[in-house]
């Protein structure tokens, strides 16, 4: 069954890596719903957040291929239940209508929108939330003359993740750290390492 998966990739900050990752999707004719790159919690390590709509079999294989890339440290995939995610949206509406219709002001407040710029001719509102929330606000604003709308890519935090500081130490070891050696691995440990 196809569903939305969020892929989180920790990478070196390398020119050309964006292409290398993007073509992994296009080669397989997978449409990228949203892609964001940003710094991560670790200095010098970049974080990609990519949303696709595929089956689990496809995303699992894809993530392994991504992780195989030399400049990729680690890649994860998660369903929407396993992450906290947000998108940011900007709306430009005529200031006139807002000034005239108190209802708009109320609506915006109800949707948690906040004015970023107020000019004579237009006002820009910003809201963050999930896709449905930002979408609803478009519909709500449309009758009042929505001039422009833009939404950012998704950013997501994995609920179970312990972050990358500790993980990075393992990657920096030239020799596998002791608990990674085969003889010390228990099945439970192995399962843990997979994540």
């Amino acid at each position: 069954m196809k569903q939305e998966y969020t892929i989180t990739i920790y990478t070196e900050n390398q020119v050309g890596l964006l292409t290398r990752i993007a073509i992994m999707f296009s080669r397989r004719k997978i449409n990228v719903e949203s892609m964001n790159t940003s710094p991560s919690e670790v200095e010098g390590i970049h974080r990609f957040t990519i949303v696709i709509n595929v089956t689990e079999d496809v995303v699992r294989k894809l993530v392994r291929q991504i992780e195989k890339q030399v400049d990729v440290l680690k890649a994860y995939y998660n369903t929407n239940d396993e992450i906290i995610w947000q998108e940011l949206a900007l709306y430009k509406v005529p200031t006139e209508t807002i000034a005239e219709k108190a209802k708009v002001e109320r609506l915006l407040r109800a949707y948690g929108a906040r004015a970023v710029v107020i000019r004579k001719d237009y006002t820009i509102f910003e809201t963050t939330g999930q896709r449905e929330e930002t979408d609803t606000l478009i519909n709500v604003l449309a009758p009042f003359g929505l001039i422009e709308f833009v939404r950012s890519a998704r950013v997501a935090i994995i609920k179970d993740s312990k972050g990358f500081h500790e993980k990075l130490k393992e990657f920096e070891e030239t020799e596998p750290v002791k608990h990674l050696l085969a003889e010390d691995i228990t099945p439970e440990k192995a399962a843990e390492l997979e994540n």
Partner: protein
Amino acid sequence: METKTLNKQTESINQAIEITGSEAVMKAMIAEGVETIFGYPGGAIMPIYDALYDYRDQLEHILVRHEQGGIHAGQGYARSSGRTGVVFATSGPGATNLVTGLADAMIDSTPLVCITGQVFAHLLGTDAFQETDVINITTPVTKWNYQITDANEIPEILAKAFYIAKSGRPGPVLIDITKNAQLQKFNFTGYTPCNHIRSYRPKPIVRKEYVEAAAEMINQAVKPLVLFGQGVILGKAENEFKTFIEKAGLPAAWTILGLSALPTDHPLNVGMLGMHGNYGPNLLTNECDVLIAVGMRFDDRVTGRLDKYAKQAKIIHLDIDPSEVDKNVKADIPVWGDCKETLPMLTNLIKSNKHEAWLKKFNDCTAKEQEAVIQDELHPTGEIMTMGEVIDQLNQLTKGDAIIVTDVGQHQMVACRYAHFNKSKSNITSGGLGTMGFALPAAIGAKYGAKDRTVIAIIGDGGIQMTIQEFGTIMQDNVDVKILILNNQFLGMVRQWQQLFHEKRYSFVDIKSPDYVTVAKGYSIEGNSIKERKNLKAALKKMLDHKGPYLLEVFVGKENNVFPMVPQGCSVSEIRLK
């Protein structure tokens, strides 16, 4: 940009010396133990060639006739020597001509370091003369690539390039160096080989519990079948592999790239897998109870129809590349790791066994195939020669000691099916990509990679015409390769498919050939052409005895087909003997 190689043991030279980027490239080559470079100069790589001029006593450079020839030669070198092939090319067309070879090396896991020249950094993106975006063009077909615009980066990046190309699952690396970086003088403090990149895990962690589970499963097996691929050769684990199968009496079948890892006459060698492989291993794939895949990737030409592939069997998959496990065939037990390490671990845990009844089934299949296919192919009663009998005669003369380089098509399948091999790294062919034109340049490279061995390039009349310009390279350096053209006056494999699946509508497969002996003569290569069986043995012997390069063209049946065959979309057990 930031690259990190940790735990460096920098062997810094006493004091920094000022050298050019190009000279740093040469120092890297020397430090990496490179002896042979295949290449072609041009505007944007001229400073590197200028530096090479001073190193021509230490670095042997082979001037090819086309960059595609250069990279295939690099592949042939890597495959026959087990080392990394090195290729130089200029920017623009020089670089784009590498693409086919990169794709071929990528899919066949061949270690290469390709250096391309690039226009001056300030001209990047201006459509300068011979500028092309080689990094983005080659990204999908390289294990790693990188553009250097500052000479200071050269030592570290080249060290990474060699490390990445050769370690883990090998592959091609391309380094693009802008002309200003080649000319730039910088303070060189020494060359440190790379042995760690924090974002790169060449070898997965071996999971002991999976090895134990795999051994247990093998011990329980009544009808086990081993499938081995090039991973055994790349891991230099031929002996470990042999010990493993011998201990438990495991029949072992090979993929086209695994060929020669196990001697042809080994009693447990049950033949070739896949579309034109042997009857037994294909048929019995769907009868075995435990399938043990070692260093192979379940290519579609091996598996046939996936939903009818070994469904009755438990699958154990040994591979160094975790992304291969479960990619095409779901493994019950994944044994991630270098088979050089995992095979001995398995051997320790498995019980001695013989599996005589099961092995007899393979022998019965061989007998059936012998009668239906092999007998007529190797000892035809008709007047016209077959490809198989040429290979059979060749076996008798080489005794299985030669390196056989094949191109792509019917002759490739026949050569792989019937050629005898005693030693590993003796079968060189374009397996994954199926690149026609591969064999001639690859044979040149193979000879440089194994100078004391006989190298025979077996090529069809289609493939030879794709890279025939490399006769020039052979002439110039008197490269001792034997060129055996099996001429059926058709693009035979396509014709076979048109006959079997397209109602004999022979659409553009009727290819004309030049007089190859005359063409070769023009390049000072001696040659001969034969049409009759009575001349075959003497002609082959003359070719092998000849000192230096030699071309022999043998006319074979025009409309012979390669069998057995697993038709596309069919299960391996639906293999056809005719």
